[in-house]
């Protein structure tokens, strides 16, 4: 083996090692079931709070159902995304309920 061949093999090995090490950082990791469960629980809790305020939105329920359906199929990326959407919607409905406690008075006919 020549010096050049040896250097080439070393550099190829180095490149492969770098790619191997770097790959988890450069390619997005697939969502895990654990991550989904955390996201779904947070969304469910927010929606439950909206329910306590009697101000749930139908779109939140739809997003929660979509999250569950995706998780059942093993598509945890989609499931996590839908669960996060559900949480955002539920939080917006909670905000709406809180602000409307007083804001409705501004709309009344006087």
């Amino acid at each position, binding site marked *: 083996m020549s010096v050049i061949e040896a250097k080439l093999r070393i550099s190829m090995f180095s490149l492969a090692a770098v790619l191997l090490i770097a790959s988890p950082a450069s390619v997005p990791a697939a969502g895990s079931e654990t991550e989904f469960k955390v996201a779904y629980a947070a969304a469910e809790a927010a929606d439950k709070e909206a329910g306590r305020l009697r101000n*749930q*939105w*139908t779109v939140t329920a739809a997003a929660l159902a979509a999250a569950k359906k995706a998780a059942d199929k093993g598509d945890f990326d989609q499931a996590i995304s839908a669960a996060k959407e559900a949480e955002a919607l539920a939080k*917006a409905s909670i905000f*709406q309920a809180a*602000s409307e406690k007083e804001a*409705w008075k501004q*709309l009344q006919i*006087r």
Partner: protein
Amino acid sequence: MVFCFTRSRVYLAVAALATLCATQPAGASDKPDPATDAKAFRNYFVKKFPNVKLEDFVNGPYALDQDMRRQWEEKEQFPPYEFSLEKGKEMFAKPFRNGKRYADCFPDQGIGIRQNYPHFDSNEGKVITLEVALNRCREANGEAPLSYVDDEMAALTAYMAFTSRGKPFDIKVPDDPRALEAYQNGKRYFYTRRGQLNFSCATCHVQNPGERMRAEVLAPALGILNAMPIYRSEWGGMATISRRFTTCNSQIRGVPLDPQDEDYRDLEYFLSYVSNGLPISGPGARP
């Protein structure tokens, strides 16, 4: 991307809401004053639609759109609620298994009393709607309650409304803090924005009556319950007040409450009271 877009829309709606709250003038007194409310309510619509006769507001969109009115007047020759009306008449007359009838549960044998509902029951401290009163009558006589959103309840209330046609709404809010609270709760519900669309009942029926929402002409809130129950061509069937309320909530992407939930009963109390003096025109027909 879809997720981001959806969230952005939500945040935009919330931001718009916050802006609205910040720019509105200070509110009126919190103390309920039903008589003053009713006067202001009526004046608002009379001023908004100076060419509409007061008693004509009970005809909803037909009072505001002449083309629709002509179609409706022709349709009234053979009204689409006629089958429901006949069914309601039969149901009302048919004895329960114990031999009693609906007539035994109501003043004046239940004829010509629609204009007095809902009323505030001082013993119970709650609002009693006609739909609730009908189911209580059934249960008191050993019959299962009817669904508040199905055809049988619509048929019964259609018949009772028909026997009251022309009689003015005569809803009382007694000098009882619980009645005033129920009235105020109904008013709060009416003006409160809800659902992802951030609409209140007033958004459509106070701010935008006469305007189109897709193919529909929005009805004014004044007199809106006088025509209930209604035959909806869009639904191909009858709509009780319960069905109308729950569907409105769903349409703005809010989860509806249970039919005849206390909030809905209070809403009906408020809306009926502010239409006092306007004639019962139910059962009605709407596109």
